[in-house]
């Protein structure tokens, strides 16, 4: 339940909203328990219910569909054949001195789709297949979105580090 609450909190950034979302998730899961397929990952099923609940509430509040970042449809393979320059490198010396608060703040500033995928992969350790099921996207999109999300997070951390005077050794 802690993992679910943690996910809810990072999505909503509000303790009361996270409480409501987790509560709603468990009640829905209980009500629709027959839709759970035995032998599949129950944690992933609960995360999917929570994510759908969040999206519905988000749509209701904003009265508009979630914004889709069409850039991410650019396939991973179209962008990865430039060698080492194809992704952002954040030197170890740069980020090792950073505090948890700074990293959490940078993560929470990401667009929700990117924040979600980093939470599911790097924090909750779901496989690409599980993530694809939780957020209803193809595995190829999981890869490309994760790739972009990590690069954006690195960029935010780099900007933060430079602002705070961390020295970059290149």
């Amino acid at each position, binding site marked *: 339940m802690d993992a679910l609450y943690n996910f809810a909190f990072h999505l909503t950034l509000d303790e009361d909203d996270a409480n409501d979302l987790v509560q709603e998730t468990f009640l829905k899961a209980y009500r629709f328990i027959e839709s759970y397929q035995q032998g599949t990952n129950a944690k992933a099923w609960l995360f999917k219910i929570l994510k759908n609940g969040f999206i519905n509430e988000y749509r209701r509040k904003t009265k508009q569909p979630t914004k889709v970042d069409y850039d991410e449809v650019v396939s991973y393979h179209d962008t990865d*054949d430039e060698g*080492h320059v194809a992704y952002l490198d954040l030197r*170890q010396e740069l980020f090792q001195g950073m505090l*948890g608060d700074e990293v959490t703040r940078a993560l929470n500033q990401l667009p929700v789709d990117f924040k979600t995928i980093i939470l599911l*992969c790097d924090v909750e350790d779901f496989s690409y297949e599980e993530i694809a099921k939780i957020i209803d996207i193809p595995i190829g999109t999981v890869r490309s979105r994760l790739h972009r999300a990590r690069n954006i997070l690195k960029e935010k951390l780099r900007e933060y580090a430079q602002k705070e005077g961390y020295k970059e050794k290149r």
Partner: protein
Amino acid sequence: MDQQLPKHDCRNFVRKVFLVLDGELPETERNLFIMDIQRCKGCLEHFHIEKTFKDFIAAKVERKECSEKLKQDILSQVQAHPEA
């Protein structure tokens, strides 16, 4: 060892590095990848940077815990509507 491996290609590293770090490759393929990158200082260095970054995110992102009150509230609601 090198004789069993194809010529090193840094593009192959970029294609696979996150699959390796995210545990998405079978063990044999993962081991081949690890052996392959030992032959390129740049790839090896980038691999360690990416691994450190992934570990860093997992370790540093704040993890919120669910309150006992919320757990009790959920339990009470489920018990109050056992037919739901």
